[in-house]
């Protein structure tokens, strides 16, 4: 489908989407603790708080003030990264807890996306090339099956097989207790060693998604005239596939990258919970179990913001790569 808008129009529209979604996120995050049943102050002031800390929280979030004032204070607090104090790890600020965990989750998600694209795109292309044949049917059915496996259950299976039965990978965490590292390389090697199972588990679900997308996308391209022309010009199958068919077919897959990130975050929460991987997901999981409301809100805000940003990046990538956006 040809786009009629220019590249800058496309970017402005997408930036507009991002802004509206960001504002919606701000409002939702403000509203959740205030519209839920119960006394809203109990969602900012934990049972273990000192009287002084209690007064400070009431003051900082303006809980005795009218709504509009609370909202202004909330905006200032949120935009300056102040999410209050954690109940379960009182008196550590929520922001501090999150900043320690966020990089690990970003690493986990980044590695999983790369791995699933690296496997899913070629697999989908192969399926489309062999359309209707045995290999294609196998790939399609296999993907459908993989999408029916709950991520957390797959994580348990992986842990059972490669942690207990054949103990080649650690049972969880990112480092063994009391490990001292001699250097950065040493640290990275240990991090990767601890991340193999979580990354593979998280990728399994998404490989299937990318396989489907790539297959469908290539099937749309293959009947096009220029492919037939390339074939009749005597180019080999491989040349036609990789030079003329695959590059345009990858584009729609990129637009879907953003939407997949939303589910990836959900998967990360579950995988981190099973592998006790100290990232944002596990932090949210712990926060929910402890009913640590400031931490639940903080992790919700930051995880959603991560998704919004990832979608924006996917859009920018798409605009940058697709010649039809803002082309001739």
């Amino acid at each position, binding site marked *: 489908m040809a786009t009629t808008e220019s590249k800058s129009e496309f970017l402005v529209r997408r930036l507009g*989407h991002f802004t509206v979604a960001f504002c919606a996120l701000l409002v939702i995050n403000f509203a959740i603790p205030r519209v839920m049943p119960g006394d809203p102050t109990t969602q900012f002031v934990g049972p273990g708080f000192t009287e002084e800390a209690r007064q400070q929280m009431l003051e900082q979030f303006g809980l005795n003030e009218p709504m509009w004032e609370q909202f202004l204070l909330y905006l200032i607090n949120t935009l300056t990264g102040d999410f209050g104090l954690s109940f379960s790890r009182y008196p550590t600020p929520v922001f501090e807890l999150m900043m320690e965990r966020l990089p690990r989750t970003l690493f986990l998600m980044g590695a999983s996306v790369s791995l699933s694209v690296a496997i899913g795109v070629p697999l989908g292309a192969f399926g489309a090339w062999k359309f209707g044949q045995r290999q294609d049917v196998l790939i399609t059915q296999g993907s459908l099956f993989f999408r029916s496996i709950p991520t957390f259950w797959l994580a348990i299976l992986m842990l059972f097989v490669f942690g207990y039965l054949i103990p080649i990978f650690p049972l969880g965490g990112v480092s063994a207790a009391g490990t001292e590292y001699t250097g950065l390389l040493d640290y990275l090697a240990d991090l990767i060693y601890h991340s193999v199972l979580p990354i593979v588990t998280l990728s399994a679900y998404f490989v299937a998604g990318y396989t489907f997308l790539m297959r469908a996308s290539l099937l749309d391209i293959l009947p096009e005239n220029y492919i037939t022309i390339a074939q009749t010009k005597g180019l080999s199958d491989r040349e036609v596939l990789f030079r003329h068919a695959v590059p345009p077919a990858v584009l729609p897959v990129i637009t879907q990258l953003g939407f997949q990130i939303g589910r990836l975050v959900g998967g990360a929460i579950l995988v981190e919970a099973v592998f006790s991987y100290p990232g944002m997901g596990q932090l949210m999981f712990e926060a929910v179990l402890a009913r640590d409301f400031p931490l639940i809100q903080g992790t919700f805000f930051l995880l*959603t913001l991560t998704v919004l940003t990832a979608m924006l990046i996917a859009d920018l990538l798409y605009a940058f790569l697709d010649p039809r956006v803002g082309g001739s």
Partner: protein
Amino acid sequence: MSKTEITVQTDRFESTRELLESVKRVLIGLLSNKKGLAGLTLVGTMVFISFAAPLIAPYDPEALGIGPRLEPPTGEHLMGTDDLGRDVFSMFLYGGRISLTVGIAAGIVATVVATLIGVPAGYYRGRTGRWLTTAIDMSLVFPPFVLVIVFAAYIGSTVFNIIVILALLSWPIPARTIKAKAISVRENEFVESTRALGATDFTIMKDEVLPNVLPVVFANGVLQVVFTILMEAAVSFLGLGDPTRISWGTMLYFAQTEGALSLGAWWWMIFPGLGIVVTAFGFTLLGTALDEVLNPRLQRRTWGWD
């Protein structure tokens, strides 16, 4: 007056017969489709054994000390026992009821909401259409599972709450597909001619657009159940499910928190998980087959984009 009533009556009779005819056609189509047959078999089996649980289950699923603690599968306890000596097989059968009920109910509600929003979003060209489309796009942006966790944590998780939360957070994806179909339907001549005859927008949507969108709605609805079943399992696994009702997800939650893996009690974790996989895969096959039968030319687009 009486004349019109009679016409209405025959119309109804006609449409009931037509409906039965098309249901029969779809069923035949599904049964002669390999995926459809496999999907119907898997889903049918799981639904049957779950809802016939009181007849099949050898023990009371909640009775403690029915067998020895943590016993591997035997002839007496087909799926072994848990740490409190409960029979895993009986729990599996009863657990399926909750998992299936929540998944199917939430899937249906989500599909209804998706239709109520998707059809007008596709049908209206002007401001209404744009607003509804923006609403769908914005809702798509939010990571559903993160929201489910937040809501479940704040509202508290009874079975009813979980159904409502899952339904209200999973409608945007089918809504987008239904909207796309509604756009293609509204371009048809018969829609224009009905409008020219003076029909209201509501009538056109109800009588012309909706019937043509229904095939997409049904196929997406079945696939939606896959999503809600997996979400229910995940929510319960995190300990946010209804603690008073056993579902496959809550079974896995207890197995995980009691350290089933380090105890080597694989049966405690394998069977509930298999229940979820078989059910989800069955619904996936059924939904895909339904899509192939109802929307023959659309099939490659099931996983498509705008």
